[in-house]
């Protein structure tokens, strides 16, 4: 628990929230509260509650081919959304359902998962393989950036100091795409010891574009560009899945932490990559 919260603000607008944040350097935005409430920081901080700013819109716009998710939308609301359940054959809702437990998903928000992303974040890994844009306020300016640029330092530091407004997921290529999410954790609602997401766009089984991301390596999720390039143009199948697994184990930077060793992670990445691609192949073949 944060023991030194000196003030708690309820701003009436995004602009007011941003200006409160600019004024107080040791301040945090709060919506779900899950992570911040568990922080053991002993430095004085102020909290700025953005939970009531109406940033919890959630909609699937089939005509536009987009899902719009307000930053303070709880993970569980996305899981329960009927329209989203059919997106990428359930990929988004089923993978988000792997996060924590029901009460944690009720409190945790998508925006909160991105402002200060944890290395083991499932959300970052999942969104890494989708066409996601993030809209946020930074220094009084409204900006929209491609989520894949999260790995660039300037974007990460900007997000740390921003109010995230919403995420937008483009579903334009969805009809010819399939995706899979894999997670290894020590108990049902423990955080990931390794997570992996794969999305394949294909033309009758031939890979047009591949995305592969792994998180909790134990570092924050990253994409395996070399594996993605190798997969492009290939025909989906069990042999390709095995080959991609071998390659992923070489390409991903993996390390030790108190959960599991780097060596264990290497074996897991190989198996999870192969299983994810096999699963996609089976889905595409039926």
């Amino acid at each position: 628990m944060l023991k030194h919260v000196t003030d708690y603000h309820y701003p009436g607008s995004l602009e007011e929230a941003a200006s409160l944040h600019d004024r107080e350097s040791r301040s945090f935005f709060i919506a779900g509260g899950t992570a911040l409430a568990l922080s053991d920081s002993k430095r004085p901080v102020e909290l700025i509650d953005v939970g009531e700013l109406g940033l919890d819109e959630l909609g699937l716009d089939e005509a536009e081919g987009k899902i719009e998710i307000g930053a303070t939308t709880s993970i569980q609301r996305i899981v329960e959304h009927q329209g989203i359940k059919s997106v990428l054959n359930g990929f988004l809702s089923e993978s988000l359902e792997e996060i924590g437990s029901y009460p944690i998903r009720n409190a945790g928000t998508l925006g909160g998962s991105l402002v200060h992303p944890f290395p083991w974040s499932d959300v970052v890994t999942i969104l890494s393989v989708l066409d996601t844009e993030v809209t946020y306020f930074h220094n009084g300016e409204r900006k929209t950036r491609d989520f894949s640029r999260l790995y660039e330092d300037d974007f990460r530091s900007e997000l740390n100091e921003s109010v995230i407004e919403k995420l937008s997921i483009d579903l334009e290529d969805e009809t010819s795409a399939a995706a899979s999410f894999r997670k290894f954790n020590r108990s049902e609602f423990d955080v990931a010891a390794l997570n992996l997401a794969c999305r394949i766009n294909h033309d009758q089984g031939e890979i047009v574009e591949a995305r592969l991301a792994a998180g909790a390596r134990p570092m924050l999720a990253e994409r395996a560009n070399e594996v993605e390039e190798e997969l492009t143009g290939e025909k989906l199948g069990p042999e390709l899945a095995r080959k991609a697994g071998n390659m992923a184990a070489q390409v991903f930077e993996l390390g030790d932490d108190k959960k599991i060793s780097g060596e264990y992670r290497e074996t897991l990445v190989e198996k999870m990559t192969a299983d994810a691609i096999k699963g996609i192949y089976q889905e595409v073949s039926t």
Partner: protein
Amino acid sequence: MNLEATINGEELTLEVEPGEVLLDVLRRNGFKSVKEGCKTGDCGACMVLVDGRAMTSCTLFAAQVQGAEIKTVEGLNDELAESLRENFLDKGAVQCGFCIPGVLISAYSLLSSNADPTEEEIKAALDGNLCRCTGYVKQIEAIKETAEELGDS
């Protein structure tokens, strides 16, 4: 600072510290069914309903529930709650009892939105509740029995 919230149907104004979690505020104000277990959101002993959704009160700042409707087990008094209580007793689903308020909140939340859950759905709803005594089998049976009873009525 003041927290204004409806707790178990009563509109209350409570004095809270900006950094206090909801669990501490509820217990200080006499809602003792809300238990402190892990205080890290893992065990579910402190589970409450916030605007109808089950959440762990140890991971929420009290100030976050400004204007919200909070329910603890003490405030569950309808047919569903009564049936759950009876079935938990009949099935022997309660042993030491420490986790039970949280388990009842999860079960109540599930059956409020899904009157006929599958066993898998019941297990998923209890994901956030740790019980070291029962092994969950009797609790799952009690929830199933409640769903059947209320479905028949």
